[in-house]
């Protein structure tokens, strides 16, 4: 399997990256680099992995639940303070519902 130009653009959209916002030459270079990187990782096909368990974490982990006790939290104001747009209680975004030509 390889990665063609259409796939690169489609993948970018999945990641909410718009290659058309970049200068044409840069988008082209990126697409070409993606092709060569994907071609490089094809190297892994040499390795048989039937019956091999995947490693999700390099060390075994056990889930340790915390005590079901209430504790102090930073609060909305602290979390919002560094957001680009907020009203003190919520994050603000452009209206999505009820607009005739809204995106997406």
């Amino acid at each position, binding site marked *: *399997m390889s*990665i063609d130009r259409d*796939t*690169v653009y489609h*993948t*970018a959209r*999945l*990641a*909410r*990256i*718009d*290659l058309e*916002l*970049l200068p044409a030459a*840069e988008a082209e270079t*990126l697409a070409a*680099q*993606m092709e*060569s*990187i*994907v071609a*490089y*990782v094809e*190297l*892994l*096909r*040499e*390795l048989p*992995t039937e019956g*091999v*368990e*995947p*490693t*999700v*974490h*390099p*060390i075994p*982990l056990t*889930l*340790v639940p*915390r005590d079901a006790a209430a504790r102090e939290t*930073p609060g909305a104001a*602290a*979390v919002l*303070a*560094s*957001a*680009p*747009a907020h009203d003190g209680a919520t*994050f603000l*975004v*452009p209206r*999505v519902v009820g*607009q005739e030509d*809204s*995106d*997406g």
Partner: protein
Amino acid sequence: MAELQALAHAVRSGATSALHVADQALERAAERRALNAFDQLDDALVRAQAAAIDERVSRGEDPGPLAGVPVALKANMVTPDLPTTCSSRILQGYEGFYDATVAARLRAAGAILFGKTAMDEFAMGSSGEHASGGPALHPTDPTRVPGGSSSGSASAVGAGIVPAALGSDTGGSIRLPAAFCGVVGFKPTYGRVSRRGLVAFASSFDQIGPLTRSLEDAALIYEVIAGRDPLDATTVSLPVTSALQALDGASPRGLRVGVDASLLGEGLQPEIRTSLERAAHQLGTSGAEIVPISLKMARYAVATYYVLTSAEASSNLSRFDGVHFGVRAAGAEGLEQVYTRSRTLGFGPEVRRRILLGTFVLSAGSYDAYYAHAQKVRTLFCREFEQVFQACDVVLLPTTPTTAFRLGNQVRDPLAMYLQDAYTIPASLAGLPALSMPLGVDEAGLPIGAQLLAAPFAETTLFRAAGALRSALAGAGGLP
């Protein structure tokens, strides 16, 4: 030489003031401003911390084992008092609201948190060149890179601005710049040090560790920051065994050192090969047993790593959307454009590349062939190391294929840059503790690093081996 211990002792005993130490570090930072090692540095904040330490000393309190010691943090470590930008445009001016656990532990030990160092954006890079504020420079040759992604940390310690810095290591980002800059760089076993407050790149690989000028200093910082954190479920409950004690009287006698001679050939700068071979020889004549090993999986390391870490990064960086943190790009019409404009214009080219690769290998048609397969290949790496560590106590490897290269040399070819990590990635895949220490210089005077790996949670063995290597080199008169 235990520089940090001596410094802390001098401050605690009143022989010197923390303010004096801080002022000297700030002067050095000003003198070496051209290195561009710092993304953030607030002189008043540094002095205020130092004054507070002096105040406690004058009241007869003991501020802790790092009293008055200036320690720089990497720009991906959150504190509430300085912006955390990850050297990315998308996080310009971002102010967090809590201390990363490592920052809190350093403060509790009396350390002065000394700025935030420049890095490759979101820790993605091996040279320091992918930084929104421009690259940090090599401490002895400003036409060369300090290595990355903990570029500013390595540069600042290598230049003597601060005696210690924290870095983060996902595929070599502490060890590689440490090797390039001639300092010690240590990546603990995955799970030893809390990642809480470290902006995540690849969650099953990232580890925080020290960059210092001596093994003792690295051991001391490690002991301060390591240990279970209830706020990071991936930290282990194992007690932190003393790395400092392991250095005391560390001897090569009886140490089994694994060396894979096939990795010392093609692609490795000849002077690095010579230095490694000489180091192995000196260990041998000092009483260590050099054990031939075979790391057959090594040639697959870079490919495995880039599939897995890009996938994890594409997930971790999906939170940067122009809504919750940092910068929202101007000119967005509608929510979709808030996302795409902020991300496309806020992320640099390397980050975009990796997000694309990660998204691709996780997408429906590709998942099994790339991501799931790479997870299984990772198991093969772990298994190979399990075998290897039955035959030896530590593995000796180069840290990097070359010494510090010139700015602009590799950055145009992403794959060439990725191959810089070929020696450091295997330990990251298996979660092993790994350390780079200075081994001398090449003919151009550029530092060469030697890398030691140990079995999971065998930091004591690792530091013993590092101490043994140091004494074997000193015994042969070969240490600069």
